[in-house]
């Protein structure tokens, strides 16, 4: 009993362990993940540790350049820019993550349904094509302009815009995920294990949840990462165009827009939030790149 075979002694390596091992070899992805989580923790915990409040007006110390007291300086009302960038990052990241989540659920649902049920395929894919033909940025601007007042009246100015923004971005960015998922489901359906599952009488619902969803998880995860990047850019673009959150409510896009008014005198005020947006998106893109390689079994283990 004591002499076990060497295979049994080694702990079984799960699939996710392999994925992580592959992910670690991609330097850019590793740095990207590190930077992204650094930013995430910074905006989540930072405001608790930082002595200045994002909305406290201190008119005596207005328009200051970077110093030890205010590493990013202060704005025209003497509010600390670092505090505002941290609070703004919370909103930008929250919008990005939530919108990505909505897009992901919609995209997966439509992709799985279209791939699994032949009679739904035509209709759902035409719908996807139609959505792809919509001019998204103009349409988003229109939606937000038109429904801002109603939703603000019901959920408060910040909550209303958040809900509107998240849903508007979510329902206009699910199409790529749906297409990828559908393609994968179509090829999965032809595999033997699906036939085996079918032959023992697995109902459709369980086929999808047990056999299809775990197998399409990797493309979903990759498009999730890239979805965060696009959602953050879209939110910032809308805020930059002045159709985002109310003026006293900082987000990265909004801070950038406010900064451009003082570009001649205090150019650094526009640089900080822009730098944060670019850094976040860059790190997320690198993470997605590494994840794509790590989740691809043809590359993994090489």
């Amino acid at each position, binding site marked *: 009993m004591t002499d076990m075979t060497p295979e049994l002694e080694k702990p079984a390596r799960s699939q996710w362990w392999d994925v992580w091992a592959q992910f670690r070899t991609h330097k850019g992805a590793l740095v990207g993940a590190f930077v992204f989580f650094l930013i995430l923790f910074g905006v989540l915990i930072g405001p608790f540790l930082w002595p200045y409040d994002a909305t406290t007006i201190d008119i005596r110390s207005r328009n200051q350049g970077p110093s030890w007291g205010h590493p990013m300086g202060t704005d025209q009302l003497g509010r600390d820019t670092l505090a505002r960038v941290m609070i703004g990052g919370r909103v930008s990241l929250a919008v990005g993550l939530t919108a990505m989540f909505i897009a992901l659920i919609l995209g997966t649902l439509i992709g799985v349904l279209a791939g699994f049920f032949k009679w739904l395929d035509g209709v759902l894919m035409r719908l996807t094509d139609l959505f792809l*033909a919509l001019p998204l940025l103009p349409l988003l601007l229109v939606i937000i302009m038109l429904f801002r007042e109603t939703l603000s009246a019901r959920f408060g100015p910040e909550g209303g815009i958040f809900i509107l923004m998240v849903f508007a971005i979510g329902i206009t960015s699910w199409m790529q995920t749906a297409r990828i998922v559908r393609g994968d489901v179509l090829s999965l359906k032809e595999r033997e294990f699906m036939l085996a599952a079918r032959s023992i009488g697995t109902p459709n619902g369980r086929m999808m949840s047990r056999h299809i969803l775990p197998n399409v998880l990797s493309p979903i995860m990759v498009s999730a990462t890239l979805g965060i990047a696009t959602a953050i850019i879209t939110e910032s673009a809308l805020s930059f165009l002045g159709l985002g959150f109310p003026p006293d409510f900082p987000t990265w896009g909004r801070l*950038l827009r406010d900064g451009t008014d003082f570009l001649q005198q205090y150019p650094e005020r526009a640089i900080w939030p822009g730098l944060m947006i670019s850094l976040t998106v*860059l790190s997320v893109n690198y993470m997605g790149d590494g994840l794509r390689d790590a989740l691809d079994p043809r590359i993994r283990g090489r």
Partner: protein
Amino acid sequence: MLTYTIRRLILTVPTLLFISFVIFLIVKLSPSDPTANLPLTIPPEVREKIRESLGVNQPLTVQYLLWLKQFFWLEPRIVLEGWFGWDLGTEGEIRLISYQTRSPVMDLIWQRMPQTLWVVGTAYLVGILIAIPIGIYSAYKQYSVFDQAGTFISMVGFSVPPFFSGVLVIVIFSVLIPTDSFWWLPSIYDTTHEVVDWESFKFQFRQMIMPVMVLALQITAQISRFARASMLDNLNQDYVRTARAKGVRERGVVMKHVLRNSMIPVVTVIALGIPGIFGGAIITEQVFKVNGLGQLLIIAIQGGDVPMVQTLTFIFAILIVLFNLVADVLYGLLDPRIRYD
């Protein structure tokens, strides 16, 4: 191929009708009032009269059909009249009127079109001209320093949004560099400027550098990646080895055999990207204060100018559908292996 093109062209009609209906519904079902921006001193009866004259009290279907008629039947005739001096009987018909300016929507759009096309077109051309050589060279020298740098720069191009890269170049070239320096560039695009002689051409060139470069960065990032991937696919094909084996010079192998084959998907990507670049131009125009179509849209949205918003959004949709069709047809024409029929 011809039957395929015709079939696709016929299919675009229901697509466009559906999209126009969606846009119409979104704009119309919103709780916005066309008289909301008028002075508060106007009495309610007069307000009601104004609404009636704008046609917003009619049933939705009537409004939609009227808009369709104005857009697809009346406006093309007016364009033809303007071009050829014909008389097609458009005199006295009601055109689509902008709420804000009280002038016909299409006239405003025709006024703004050249600025946008000029900036966007140049940027697209510059972007393609930079991207394709980069793509070819980084594929040919895969994993070289040049390739690594190219990958990084295109990643940056993907990640830095135009509203930041635009602000950044303004800070560098208009704020930090002194005004009398050779490197100083104007941050505001002056559309009233006319090119008459060498000096004014130089000014036009200088003011176009920044907006064009900001837009071109994004285009370059996308297209160079595609060109690289497509070149890599082809470089390992058997026909490349055959060409080398029969003694074709390296230059001929890469620039003739591989390049021609790998440009097929790139050309379609270029066609597909054209509508997207108009969307990107909305932001870039805002940064550099170009008074083009994007700026017109933003002003119309902020002013609640429903006919203008509706028409502009629909024009963007037409561009997307049209260039999707162009991309598909081009793909079929360029690649004899692809047959749709």
